[in-house]
Structures are given as structure tokens and as C-alpha cells.
């Protein structure tokens, strides 16, 4: 019986590996998720700030959004978690270096001790990736502030999905605040990859391998929810939507200008707002459904929109045909 269940789960994983068009990341939810609605009735602030290009005053834009959200980081240990899962010079997979550099300046200026950490999903040489993405050349003393989360020393966390003990990098566990510096992208197995999905890069490759295949077998949506459940309470989302990715994301899509930075402490609310900007109905994105009222707020009426109104910045991202049903009316 156990073997049969493993085999069935394996189909989902193998399908994800092979690009099975019908696979949408599994439907497993956290066992507690359906019985508790701890956030029912709560509202969450989300700031949308316009930024037309990476050469603008991004630090100023970020500062406005952070202040709108009431974030206080003075004296805190902050880990910036950008997305550089992979590199392709012909598209825009990664959180742009200008956004990472500006965030480093902003959080330092707010009195935080700041590190940058990422565990790329596909490539082994993280520092070479940082070179390709220009992080290493354009962020002063990058090697001194950067932590390769794939190869850092780890400590156990109990109760991650059905795995019992799961290991995470010490910098992640020690941080008072993790800033999910995500890229606004479509995702061919999850619908969209934003601040919550970005936390796949917190899982150490030294134990779980590349491309963090363990999370695919747990279930992509379930893993997103579990990572958000564990790290969401000490998180702040800052999504790079200046130029996002549409179509066959998160690697092989095409650049799409949205001209915004989206911020907030409620990762689900930020991701739901990003979805609306992208012309995606967040209520149809499985992991956001699972997060609603359990890990965050996704209803538009309960998100306190600060800065730009969504209608003013909405620009529909192209969706692959398998996700056409996600289109926001």
C-alpha cells in the first residue's frame, strides 16, 4: 500500500520532470489548512510603487513602499533572498541586480544588518551564477555579504510537510526577517512564481539536490505553503515587476514590462496583488487558494492597497494554454 502511494506520488514528480501538460503541481494541502482559518476577517497592507526602469531611483521607490507598509527593521538581521534560479542572457529570469543593490542600501539605511542569500535551483556554481547576473560585479563586496544557501551549514526544523525533520541553512533560520526579493513571472507548473514560490531557494541542495526535486515530490503547491507557513511570519515581500516574465516561465518565457515594485509583509497578499497586476485571478492559483485566510489574505477587498491602484498598472501577462483558465476577468 505504501509502495503504491509512493508510486502514485512519483507520477506527479516524474510528470513535472518530463513536462506533462496535465500536471499542475499536485493538489495536496497542509493537513491543518482546511480546518483552520486563523486570518478570517484580517486585512493586509500591500504597496504598489511605479518604477519604469532599472535606472530609476529604486531605493527611493522601495523606501516609500516600506514606509507605507509600516515595516521596522532597525537592529534586525535581514536576509535578502533574490531569485537567480538560472541564467539566460536572452531573457530575464532573475531579480535584477539593480533591485538587489537598492534593497541592500535601503535595509542598511534603516538600521538592519543585511546579508544576501540564494540557493539556485539548477546550477551548482552559485558564485558563477552571481557573476553572470552581474550581482558580483555591481554589488560592492558581494562575496562578503552573500551566502550560498545550497552549501551553507544547516540545522533541522521539525514538521515540514510529511518529512518530519527537514534541514534549512543557518542564515535562513538565524534571520530576524527574510525579504523575498522575487521576480514577477508566470510558472509552467504553478501558474505564477512570486514571493512565496521564491522560497524554494531556501532549501539546501547539499542535502536535497538540484533542482530541489524533493519539493516536487512533496508537491509544488504543498511545498510553497509549507515554506510560507514556516518562514512567512518573519518575511517581507518585495517583488521585482519592473520587467517580469510571461509565457513559458519561469525559465523559458519572454520579458514583460510591468513597471512596478510590489511590497508587503503578507506574502499571500503581495502575491495575490501581483497576480491581479499580471491579469491572473489569484483565487484560481492553487497555492494562493490554499494560503487564503490560513497564511495570508488574497481577497482584493481585504488588501489595503497603498500607492498605485491595480487598475492603473494592470498589464496582462501571456499565459500558456494550460493556464488560460487563470485569466482574471
Amino acid at each position, binding site marked *: 500500500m505504501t509502495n*503504491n502511494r*509512493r*508510486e*502514485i506520488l*512519483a*507520477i506527479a*514528480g*516524474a*510528470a513535472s*520532470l*518530463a*513536462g*506533462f*501538460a496535465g500536471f499542475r503541481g499536485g493538489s495536496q494541502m497542509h493537513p491543518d489548512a482546511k480546518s483552520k482559518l486563523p486570518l478570517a476577517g484580517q486585512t493586509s497592507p500591500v504597496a504598489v510603487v511605479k518604477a519604469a526602469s532599472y535606472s530609476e531611483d529604486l531605493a527611493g521607490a522601495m523606501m516609500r513602499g516600506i514606509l507605507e507598509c509600516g515595516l521596522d527593521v532597525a537592529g534586525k538581521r535581514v536576509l535578502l533572498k533574490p531569485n537567480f534560479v538560472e541564467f*539566460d542572457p536572452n531573457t530575464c529570469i532573475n531579480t535584477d541586480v539593480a533591485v538587489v543593490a537598492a534593497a541592500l542600501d535601503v535595509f542598511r539605511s534603516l538600521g538592519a544588518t543585511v546579508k544576501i542569500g540564494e540557493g539556485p535551483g*539548477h*546550477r*551548482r*556554481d552559485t*558564485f*558563477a551564477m552571481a*557573476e*553572470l547576473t552581474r550581482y558580483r560585479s555591481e554589488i560592492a563586496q558581494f*562575496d562578503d555579504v552573500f551566502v*550560498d544557501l545550497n*552549501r*551553507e*551549514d*544547516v540545522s*533541522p526544523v521539525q514538521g515540514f510537510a510529511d518529512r518530519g525533520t527537514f*534541514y534549512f541553512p543557518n542564515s535562513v533560520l538565524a534571520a530576524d526577517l527574510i525579504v523575498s526579493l522575487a521576480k514577477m513571472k508566470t510558472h*509552467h507548473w504553478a501558474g505564477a512564481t512570486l514571493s512565496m514560490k521564491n522560497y524554494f531557494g531556501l532549501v539546501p*541542495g*547539499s*542535502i*536535497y*539536490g*538540484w*533542482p530541489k*526535486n*524533493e519539493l*516536487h*515530490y512533496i508537491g509544488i503547491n504543498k511545498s510553497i505553503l509549507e515554506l510560507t507557513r514556516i518562514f512567512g511570519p518573519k518575511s517581507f515581500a518585495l517583488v521585482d515587476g519592473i520587467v517580469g516574465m510571461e509565457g*513559458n516561465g519561469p*525559465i*523559458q518565457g519572454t520579458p514583460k514590462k510591468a513597471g512596478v515594485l510590489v511590497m508587503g509583509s503578507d506574502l499571500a497578499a503581495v502575491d495575490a496583488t501581483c497576480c491581479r497586476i499580471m491579469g491572473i485571478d489569484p483565487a484560481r492559483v492553487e497555492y494562493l487558494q490554499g494560503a487564503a485566510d490560513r497564511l495570508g489574505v488574497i481577497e482584493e477587498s481585504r488588501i489595503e492597497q497603498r500607492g498605485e491602484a491595480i487598475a492603473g498598472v494592470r498589464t496582462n501577462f501571456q499565459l*500558456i494554454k494550460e493556464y488560460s483558465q487563470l485569466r482574471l476577468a
Partner: protein
Amino acid sequence: MPGLSPDRGVYLEARLGALRRNQNSDGGWGYFPGKASWLEPTAYAALALAGDPAADRAWTLLSSWQLPDGSWKPSADVNISNWGTSLCATIAMARGEWGPPLKSSVNWLVGSTGIESGWLNVLVARLGLVKQERDISLKSWPWKPGNSGWVEPTVHALVALKLAAARLSSPELHERVRMGEAQLLDVRSRDGGWNYGSPAALGVDLPSFPETTALALVALQGRSDLGKAFDLAQRQIGETPSPLARAWLTIAMRLHGVKTADLTGDPPLDTMITALEALAAPQGNYKLMQTGTGAQAGAVA
């Protein structure tokens, strides 16, 4: 185990010296100096320093990390079977230690497979119910049990099993080697190299990466049908910013007897890359991964 070469050059000595200086008191190495010991950097450093007392201390530590089922865990505190079992088996054979610990690790490797190759998945694929971009009936090796097979762990398992075939031959071992080589060839990217696991996603070709292309070549020693991959590797070694990729590409070409330029520069801070660069040096111990052809291992017709 080979002794130290009398004239190994400044490049190699600089790396071996750095490794000796950065060895932890428990005998292992962290991924970076001053960090806790992990199997992967310790194993590569032990291979690079083979014959040196530092390698003996490393092996003492690694030996203490073997689990009862024959596999190895990745660090002192993480009790999860790990692909690095292959590296430890290779070290054991390089040291001439063919006893029960090696046999149990080889048995574990022979029985280890990517979960996608389970019978139900293969049946579903054969019935055409799931679109596959690789032949999942060809068994490969995962990073850890319960995951899919990928290029890098498959490469290291093939190296270990081909070396093991010299004295621990069995039909099962030969079949896994034959199938593992076939699997690597099946997942080759259209450009002639290798991505990290699959040649395509959602019907779109994936490009090869230099490090995984190099690793696949290490596993496919002795084959005569890899010319396009060498052309690609020669180009990649000049273009990649990754010292990890350059080290593996150099090791791969040396193992295939392909002429390649020597690596230059100062040792990096990264322990694993330091060890791989030492292995890649002209007088380095890359030959400890020399398996001969698959046919010599009794595996490829």
C-alpha cells in the same frame, strides 16, 4: 593508492597546500574554510590529496559516516542517505579497501534508482498516458532516495560501479552500468551536451550546461561517439565564468585523452573547487576516476 608525484608544479601545490591548511580538526572540509565538514568537499579533497596523511584523516571521518544500509550521509548531523556514497566508494577503491564497507556501498548503489523508474510510472509511460521527454525505463541515480534521477549523481554512480566491476562483478552491476550509460545518452541535449537532467521541458529544448556536460563525459569514458560533445566542451571551457565547470571540463578531457590547456590562477576560497582544480592539474589525481570503457567494465556491448 598512488604516491605523491615528485614534481607537481606550483598550481597543484598551491591547491594542495590550501587544502591542508583548511582541513578541519575532525579530518573533513567544509564547503568553505572554517565551516562544518561535509561529505562532498571532504571526498574531493581526499581524492586530490590521495597518499597524503590529510587524506587518511579524511577517510577516517568519512568512514564514520557510513550508514548501516551501506550508503553515506552527507554530514555528521544529517542522517539521510546521499549520492556522495558514490564518491566514498571511489575513494575506498582508490585506497585498495575492497572489504565489507565497500561491498555494502556498491550493493546500495546497484539498488538505488530514480523514483521515476518505478514500475507504475513506466507502465503509465508505456501506455502513453503521460508525455515523457526521456525514457524513464532507463534507470539512473537520484541525489537522495525517493527523488528523480539526475545527471550528476548518475555520473558518480557510474564511475564508482565501473571501478567496482574489476573485483565485485555481478550481472546486476553490469546491467546498471549499461542502463546508466544508455540513460545519459538518452537525456543528451540537442546541442550535444547535457543539461542537469532532461533534454527538454514542455517540449522546449533545454541548453546544455558546461559542468553537467563535463560530468557526463567523465561517466562515458571510452566511447567513440562523443565528438560533438567535445567540440562543445572546448567552446564551453573558454566561455564559462565558472571555475567549477572549467575544472570538470579539464578533468573530462584529460580522462578522454583530449589535449587541453592547463588551468591557471590562484586557488579559490571555495574548498570543493580548490579540490577539483587540484584533481584537474596535469599531475593531479584525476586518474583515480579513470574507469576505462564501459566494455572493460563488462557493461557495454
